[in-house]
């Protein structure tokens, strides 16, 4: 492979190491600390290399280093998921190659590593800003690839050229993006031992080792009356009744409406409008106890016995509805024996230590409130901490959480409290939804995915369902000040913060800018991130009226055709077509003679050439040709105006003389 000189190494080396650093940066939570050290060393080596030629490391040293790194990776791979091990492996490979950076093949390898890293980055983050960020890195990387064979072109010109190529690639990419049919996952992806907060109809706290927090918008609430204080903002969405020792899940009858009679509510109503992003479930969001006032669009929103709101179908469109919530009204309208039993049910086995502990604390004759107090002792007495990176708890998760690790996030606390309450004979259930939200101004509240929360409801005879939030005991700030106050600096890196301008609310321009950014972000999510088979189908329907095999084929062919037309527009040599060479009788003669096998030498004049040919011609040919040449010269240099037709005729006679 071609070795690059110091001069050729300089700019690409610096650019590539910067790209590498920037692409690793957003994933820093995933990178192991020893990889950081290697990373810094390799960047230092590259910079030393481009500044001054230094001796390359010995191959043996390099190989030993590589083996050592691989062993370390293997050693730590158990603790990290497959995906993060892969990312670490990529970074290590990139670092090792950076150290030996010498040939263009080395550069290509690092570029490939970078492409992989960027792809991994996109798996974690898909917001518009980060996409732009990674896009910039990708383009810079490609520019580096361009620099490797740029020749004597200046860097600016190379940048122009490579930008041109990238710009030309964009429309083709868009067309392919729209056209290529979306496939379902080909196989089960390597389990990403990380989960994103948000709503789901099952919760298995022990399975999540790394709760990546997405800053995506869940919904917006516009309060018509005064918004409630932060600690009152419990947005109910999903109620989970069933527990099997590991996983909480929704009841089969959750969507039943038959046993939901009208209810009488008391107290003052809080009125607000919800604009909810689609969430892939039928559940909607509301404060307790909701009464739907108005739904925008032709959909219906129902309320069930657990005071949850839901729609008829899973929707891909945002929902818009106005709700009156009676915050002070007790939730005591529905409880049957069936419900009571369901919310007392615990699996027969498992989590033995918790069972033992509860049976020690609780006696059958205690009042519900005393029992509750006894159980809650657990969280007051021992040292629990709130973290987004809890250890995995695969077997007897509640035992492990309560007695071994004592570290977890809301689902862990809620799950174990609900379990203990059930064990002590109090009907209890898990409620999943969102807590808090960020007031953008006086009455608009945005709730993002990282505001997702889980809490517990228990039944107190006479009072109804009461909310109890064990997380509040461990991390009280979580309720009042939001997520960021209750986690460590290291963990807050796991949380994608949305681009936030809420501090500048007073300035109208910034307010407008914010609305505008929110709109762009919304469009990005809707049109790009959510583009799937259905969107494609809708598009085809819109263009062709119906969706069938024929319209699908036409659609794809049309797009392929567009790509071909685009490429044609770029590459066809119009210039040579439209700037046709001016008429020259001399060149016509030359073409004719060339056909006979005589070619004019490069520096020969037409006259000399014809003279050279003379011995090989007969008298007639000689005459015809020299006459033609004479007229040619006259035409070109003199003021002879022989018409084109005459030249054609003369040429014809030259031709006939050869027969």
């Amino acid at each position, binding site marked *: 492979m*071609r070795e690059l000189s110091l001069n050729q190494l300089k700019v690409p080396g610096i650019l590539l190491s910067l790209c590498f650093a920037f692409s690793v940066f957003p994933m820093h939570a995933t990178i192991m600390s020893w990889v950081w050290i290697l990373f810094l060393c390799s960047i230092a080596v590259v910079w030393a290399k481009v500044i001054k030629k230094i001796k390359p490391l010995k191959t043996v040293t390099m190989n030993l280093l590589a083996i050592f790194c691989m062993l370390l990776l293997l050693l730590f791979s158990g603790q990290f998921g497959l995906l993060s091990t892969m990312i670490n492996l990529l970074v290590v490979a990139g670092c090792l190659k950076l150290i030996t950076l010498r040939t*263009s*093949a080395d550069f*290509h390898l690092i*570029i*490939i590593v970078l*492409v*992989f890293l*960027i*792809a991994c980055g*996109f*798996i974690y983050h*898909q917001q518009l800003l980060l*996409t732009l960020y990674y896009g910039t890195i*990708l383009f810079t990387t*490609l520019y580096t*690839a*361009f620099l*490797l*064979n*740029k*020749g*004597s*072109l*200046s860097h600016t*010109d*190379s940048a122009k*050229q*490579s930008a041109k*190529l*990238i710009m*030309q*690639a*964009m429309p*083709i*990419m868009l067309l*392919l*993006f729209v056209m*290529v049919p*979306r*496939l*379902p*996952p*080909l*196989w089960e*992806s390597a389990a990403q031992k990380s989960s994103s907060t948000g709503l789901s109809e099952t919760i298995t706290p022990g399975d999540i080792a790394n709760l990546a927090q997405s800053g995506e918008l869940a919904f917006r609430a516009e309060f018509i009356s005064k918004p409630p204080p932060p600690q009152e903002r419990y947005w109910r969405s999903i109620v989970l009744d069933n527990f099997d020792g590991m996983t909480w899940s929704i009841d089969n009858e959750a969507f039943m409406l038959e046993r939901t009679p009208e209810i009488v509510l008391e107290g003052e109503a809080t009125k607000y409008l919800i604009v909810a992003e689609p969430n892939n479930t039928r559940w909607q969001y509301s404060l307790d106890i909701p009464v739907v006032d108005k739904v925008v669009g032709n959909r219906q929103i129902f309320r069930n016995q657990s005071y949850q709101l839901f729609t008829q179908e899973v929707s891909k469109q945002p929902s818009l509805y106005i709700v009156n919530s009676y915050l002070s009204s007790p939730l005591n309208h529905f409880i049957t024996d069936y419900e009571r039993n369901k919310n007392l049910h615990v699996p027969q086995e498992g989590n033995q230590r918790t069972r033992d502990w509860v049976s020690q604390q609780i006696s059958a004759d205690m009042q519900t409130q005393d029992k509750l107090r006894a159980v809650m002792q657990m969280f007051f007495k021992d040292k629990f901490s709130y973290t987004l990176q809890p250890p995995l708890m695969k077997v007897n998760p509640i035992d492990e959480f309560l007695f071994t690790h004592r570290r977890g996030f809301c689902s862990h606390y809620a799950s174990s409290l609900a379990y203990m309450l059930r064990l002590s004979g109090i009907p209890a259930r898990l409620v999943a939804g969102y807590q808090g939200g960020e007031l953008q101004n006086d009455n608009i509240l945005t709730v993002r995915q990282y505001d997702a929360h889980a809490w517990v409801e228990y039944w107190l005879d006479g009072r109804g369902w009461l909310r109890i939030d064990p997380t509040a005991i461990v991390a009280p700030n979580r309720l009042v000040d939001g997520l960021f106050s209750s986690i460590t600096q290291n963990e807050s890196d796991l949380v994608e913060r949305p681009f936030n301008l809420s501090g500048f609310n007073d300035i109208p321009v910034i307010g407008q800018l914010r609305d505008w950014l929110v709109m762009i972000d919304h469009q990005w999510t809707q049109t*790009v*991130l*959510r*583009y*799937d088979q259905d969107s494609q189908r809708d598009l085809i329907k819109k263009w062709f009226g119906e969706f069938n095999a024929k319209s699908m084929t036409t659609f794809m062919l049309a797009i392929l055709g567009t*790509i071909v037309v685009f*490429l044609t527009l*770029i*590459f066809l040599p119009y210039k040579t077509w439209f700037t046709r060479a001016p008429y020259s009788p001399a060149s016509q003669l030359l073409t004719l003679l060339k056909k006979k096998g005589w070619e004019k030498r490069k520096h020969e004049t037409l006259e000399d050439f014809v003279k050279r040919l003379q011995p090989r011609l007969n008298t007639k040919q000689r005459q015809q040709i020299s006459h033609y040449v004479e007229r040619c010269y006259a035409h070109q240099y003199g003021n002879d105006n022989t018409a084109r037709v005459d030249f054609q005729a003369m040429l014809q006679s030259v031709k006939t003389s050869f027969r």
Partner: protein
Amino acid sequence: MKQILSRIKHKWIGYRNRWLNKRIPAENTFNLDLGNTFILPSSFGWTMIAIVLFLFILGTNYQNNIVLGMSYFFIALGLLSLFHSYAFFTQHTIDFLPFEAEFANRDLQLKCHISTQQKYLGGEITLYGYGQSKTYSLSHKGERQLLQLPLRQLQRGLHECERIKIETLYGFGLFRCWSYLQPKHQILVYPAIQKAPIQLHRHLDEDESDYDTANQTVASDNLQGIRNFVDTDPLHHVSWKHVAKGQGLMTKDFTQSAGLSGWVRLSDFGHGDEEMGLRILSYQVQQLYKDNAEFGVDLGKTKILPQTGFDHLQKCLFRLATHGQASEPPEHLNHA
């Protein structure tokens, strides 16, 4: 194993060249176009194709539109690169320059001019041939440029030039465009130089005993040769030996005024090693030319009549180079 591989390679090259001879006949000027251009992804390009597949699978499995978009972006980039690389390569015209004859132990240069239509500027071009390769940065001003490739270890003789591979990697280095071009110009390699004392025969049919004496004198210090007596010559320069033999009045010619004449003979040197003999003659004819001698060369079957001058030297060297080869001297030597 190595042998088998090299034999397979040899066979493949032979097959390839036969195919190429039909398709791209030898020529001195090539306009690179559809007919003589090959294009395939480079190793980086193949890896990128693999990456596109990988990204597609990754994006599909994680249902991640951005990763899918990335894979489409690379498809688009590859497609554009394909055309751009081709357009870049085919904008060039290659003019092979005639080879300058050289001696076998020295490097011969393959020279060619490359000119562009200025559609794309910059870029690099690599010449491969005779086990050598050389990369040139192409001028960003689009003017004509001289490329050279040293040809090492050529045997003496008049050779057809091998096929020269010229290659470019344009754009992001995803595609390799190349062509195998064969110049029509022939390569003339003179035998290497081997120093040995000059043995000049006065006559073609002279026998062994004869040259000895004649040559001893010739080989001595600054004596250059013997020539016919001219009136102005001083008497002490007359070669009385020749007079005694009845060859008329001859003047011993010293350095200032050369005029030596005679024959060099291949059979005198090398002691059966003909190549060695040719190398020695290669030295001697040059020396004799420098001394402005009138010399002829006797190569056994081929004999070149004594003459002087540069053209004669070239002719002699040509015969030495092609000794044993059936070949006609090139045009410019014929005119001489």
